[in-house]
């Protein structure tokens, strides 16, 4: 049901590089899972509202007051390539 091109398209959306073997395996495995999942499309769900959250909480608000955040050096200590007091990344120019 899912072909190689679809797998490559979804992988690109997900920012996931897959090797050839993974693309084939993913196509087969996801197709099998989706075949099983297909069954829910046969239910009559006309007029049923969707549920995105099960517990009734609406508009949880708080006062907008500044609070101390984590020190910059502590946060940057976890970064693979800190640069000039920030997160270093390659140029987003290409592609």
């Amino acid at each position, binding site marked *: 049901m899912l072909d190689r091109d679809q797998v490559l398209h979804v992988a690109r959306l997900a920012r996931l590089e897959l090797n050839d073997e*993974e693309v084939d395996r993913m196509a087969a495995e996801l197709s099998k899972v989706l075949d099983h999942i297909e069954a829910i499309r046969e239910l009559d769900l006309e007029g049923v509202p969707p549920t*995105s959250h099960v517990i009734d909480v609406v508009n949880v608000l708080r006062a907008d007051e500044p609070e101390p955040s984590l020190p910059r050096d502590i946060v940057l200590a976890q*970064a693979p*390539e800190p640069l000039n007091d920030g997160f270093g990344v390659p140029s987003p120019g290409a592609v």
Partner: protein
Amino acid sequence: MNELIDLTATQAAERIRAGDVDAAELFEAYRERAAADELNAFTWVAPESPTNGLPANAPLRGVPVAVKDLFCTEGVPSQAGSKILEGYRPPYTATVIAKLSDAGAPLLAKTNQDEFAMGSSNENSAFGPVLNPWDRTRVPGGSSGGSAAAVAAGLAPWAIGTDTGGSIRQPAALCGIVGLKPTYGACSRYGMIAFASSLDQAGPFTRDVTDAALLFRHMVGRDRRDSTSLDYPGEIELPRAEDLKGLRLGVPEDLTGAAGGIEPGVRENFEATIKLAEGLGASIEPCRLPHAPQALSAYYLIAPAEASANLARFDGVRYGLRVDGDKDLIRMYSRTREVGFGAEVKRRIMLGTYALSSGYYDAYYGTAQKVRTKIAEDFRSAFDRFDFIVTPTSPCVAFELGAKLDDPLAMYLNDFLAVPMSLAGIAAISIPSGLSDGLPVGFQLAGPAFSENRLLDAAHALERAIGFDGSRVRV
């Protein structure tokens, strides 16, 4: 065998408060056991006993707790079982861990888990699989397999894990211990490395139901850092019930019938447990949850969809692994994720991205959310007539390592009986109900949102009647 290890966590807490047991000695006894672990249950063990004074008179003073790897713990490795978080030591601590620490429970160890809590066998961990203490050729269940195995084997007096679609209840069942999945919103999710935010809940793994109540008592409460968390209505009481008089238990044939694929040994045990419940005064009747058989399909759209968004943050920029992208940003992202994520995580990211992609959103994700509404309605109707819904926790006992690794769908079907409760956000507990072919079987009771006190009471009465003895794997 150290006699300290034979104490339940509740007993140990009482003895420490009474001055009969030394907190440092108890910690060291468990620390030594955890450090000598042969089940691969841990990803990190505390290097020494906490020397600075534990809070005096704290209710859990000195009873160490093991914590699933995905709970961020300041300065302690927290990788959610993933290579992509290699070397990550969070600069902050999850609310639930902070609460337990305030209550006096020191951190003993971090426990192994399926990567990002995705799995039902604990075989999807960057740290390798966990072995089941009942049979080391078998899985402990997942995703909180390390927490379950550690408590069952007496390597920790108790532990916490998370349940998204069965990840507390199923490993508890497969390891012969108690696992509670609380009502969604009962415990703060702040500091839990997210899998599926509308489903994830923290909960206890314990030797008995009383321990589950005591640990849960110190986990609950609204947290301003998690706006989906709620004030728990009332206190969590230690359970006292010795019978089930007047309780109506519903057996949902939509789940326990042929569709559930329940093994004969598990079914036999389930029926025997139902008889015991009847003997304790409960009335048992069949009930309907007509949409529950579709819960697994809805879950395997909703959870991966949420996961695909949550896991977008692992991109090699702020923490963990980075793989070189030949000076190209997108290639750096894609290669980091290719190398850092395991096969199951990639599968779920792909499934979730597909379900959310243009042209498929309504057909998959939208439909799944409607099914979720129907499942919640099914439970509400059932709870008009019944106090609790009961099922086996897992359709099978612990299976052999590798048995389902190449068949994702077969692996997903392990969650058939656990997922409906997760989608409805209700409370459910698994207690050990006996053995089938020498391996533990779990019995699941599910109740309405915030029914934990009643649920724990019923589970306690049933636990007494069952008389399960897991002591022989605490060697």
